[in-house]
């Protein structure tokens, strides 16, 4: 009797427990879904939807009432300015990223050489360009490059050299824009590479030294392989950010002289917002997409691989 009652209770309780568990699991996933809902809405409405909307906009005519297919693109292909912008964007992004990575790598080694208790201070000083909002620091550069009061030209003249038209001459303007981008972005690489350098075990260097490796071999066979991942991901990140750069070019030259320093972002702004031709601006900005997609694929592959290594 008692046994039966107990078994009854057991029989009753186990399925009840199971459904309770299932309900809890269901509740768990629905709570989780609710917690991520704002994030999903934000990304869906304000990132993904506009991205596809840009494709739609690019197929409309200027007054946005008529579907014109690809004629915005053919119009762009026939304009010399467009190809100039393509070339300048690529030169700008590639040169800037290469120099940022090089300077970051070299300076990271210098900081790494310094005694540990002084590294913090140097790191703190060298990261300052990254902390200042780029629109503000570019203003300082604009003033340093001022046509009539340039502080750099003052030094050049006192050294007996001829002054330089930093923002007036097309080639110097391109150089200046890249210089500012390198100045702004190199500290980011420096910090990333410094963190990576610290994670390389000292034993590897000691072993290399015992084997008689010189400093170049130590860098080539120990440092670079150990830092490969972090170098790849910072370069990809920076390529995306540099390719999509707007602030520096807009503040320093606004695309001038005669559109010679326009990159995709500033030209899209000029055409789309200032010129009022939204479809054409959208078409221009869409040209950033292929390079971003390529970088994103590489980054994704890296994340996957690291996820596999971790597990």
């Amino acid at each position, binding site marked *: 009797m008692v046994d039966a009652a107990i078994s009854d209770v057991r029989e009753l309780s186990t399925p009840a427990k199971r459904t309770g568990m299932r309900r809890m699991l269901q509740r768990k*996933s629905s*709570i*989780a*879904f609710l*917690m*991520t809902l*704002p*994030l999903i809405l934000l*990304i869906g409405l*304000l*990132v*993904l939807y*506009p*991205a596809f*909307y*840009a494709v739609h906009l690019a197929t409309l005519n200027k007054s*946005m009432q008529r579907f014109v297919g690809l004629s915005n693109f053919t119009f762009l292909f026939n304009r010399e300015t467009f190809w100039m912008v393509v070339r300048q964007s690529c030169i700008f992004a590639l040169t800037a990223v290469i120099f940022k990575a090089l300077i970051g790598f070299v300076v990271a*080694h*210098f*900081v790494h*050489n*310094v005694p540990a208790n002084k590294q*913090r201070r140097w790191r*703190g*000083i060298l990261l*300052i*360009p990254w*902390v*200042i*909002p*780029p*629109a*503000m*620091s570019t*203003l*300082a550069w604009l*003033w*340093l490059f001022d046509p009539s009061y340039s*502080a750099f030209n*003052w030094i050049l003249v006192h050294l007996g050299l001829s002054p330089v038209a930093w923002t007036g001459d097309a080639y110097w303007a391109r150089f200046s824009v890249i210089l500012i981008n390198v*100045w702004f972005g190199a500290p980011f690489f420096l*910090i*990333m590479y410094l963190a990576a350098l610290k994670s390389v075990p000292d034993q590897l260097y000691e072993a290399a030294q015992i084997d008689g490796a010189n400093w170049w071999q130590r860098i080539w066979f120990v440092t670079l392989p150990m830092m490969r991942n*972090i170098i790849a991901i*910072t370069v990809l*990140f920076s390529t*995306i950010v540099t390719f*999509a750069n*707007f602030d520096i070019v807009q503040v320093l030259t606004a695309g001038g002289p005669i559109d010679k320093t326009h990159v*995709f*972002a500033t030209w*899209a*702004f000029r055409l789309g917002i200032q010129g009022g031709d939204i479809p054409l601006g959208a078409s221009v*900005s869409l040209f*950033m*997409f292929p390079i*971003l997609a390529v970088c994103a694929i590489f*980054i*994704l592959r890296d*994340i996957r691989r690291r996820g596999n290594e971790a597990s």
Partner: protein
Amino acid sequence: MTAATVVMDKSAPTRPRYGSMSRDRRWALRWSYFFLVLFAIFFLTPPLYMFITSLKTSAEISAATNPWWVYHPSLTNYIELLTSSTYIIFFRNSAIVSIFVVCITMIISVPAAFALARMKFWGSAVLATGVFLTYLIPDTLLFIPLFKMFAVFNEWTDIQLINKWWVLLIVYPTLTVPFCTWIMIGYFASIPKELDEAALMDGANYRQILFKIFIPVALPGLIAATIFAFTVSWAQFLYPLAFTTSPDQLVLPVGIITTLIKGDVFNWGQIMTGALLGAAPPLIIYAFLMDYYIAGLTAGATKG
């Protein structure tokens, strides 16, 4: 093997080799300092020049004396700017926008990161990667469609979004939320599972686990994410330039560039003062919370 070690031990002239190594190292250190000083000069020239110019009067600037030295330092630029109502409005707009954006970002990204890191559900892994990918979509790709969307929204509902400072509260989170969620996922995932299992055993619900365990334990990550959200929204330039135009709606970076630069008369003393004061909040935060700042910077690429 042993013979080799014995030979190595016996090859007594190790001392000069050690000596040369330490000499090498001393030279490496000297060269490091030398180049570090050079690079520090390169990196610090613009902010220092901002400061130098901000202390000059217009008369001294136009006299074209040595630009790298202040002969008659004066604070008139600072006084003029801090008493001018337009500059105060820019500063206030920037502060309000940044603080609100930080709050919105945290409210959206902390629960989402918790759910994605701990409560596995259908599609959560894909969503986590997707969040990271949206961080890679730049603002320069989105500002034109967003501009048009807000115009259409205005036609439909009669709510004016363009040229109001609070439109920035809608668009800035798209820049901050993905990255903050991503680094919070990393921090939350590094918390040992035993901790929340023990709490579940004790009968805690998810809200209690989040607020009593995860947020306190991952506080450094939370601070890093907050700093990131603040600096990004303080420095953002493209969206306010595209979406706001009237002077009372502008935030600091756009305000300085559009109103202080009047035609061809560049009042450089004031522009530099405005830029320096505008750069001050991120710099102050950085000065006091440098380690958190750097942790947030490196977390994005090393975590996950």
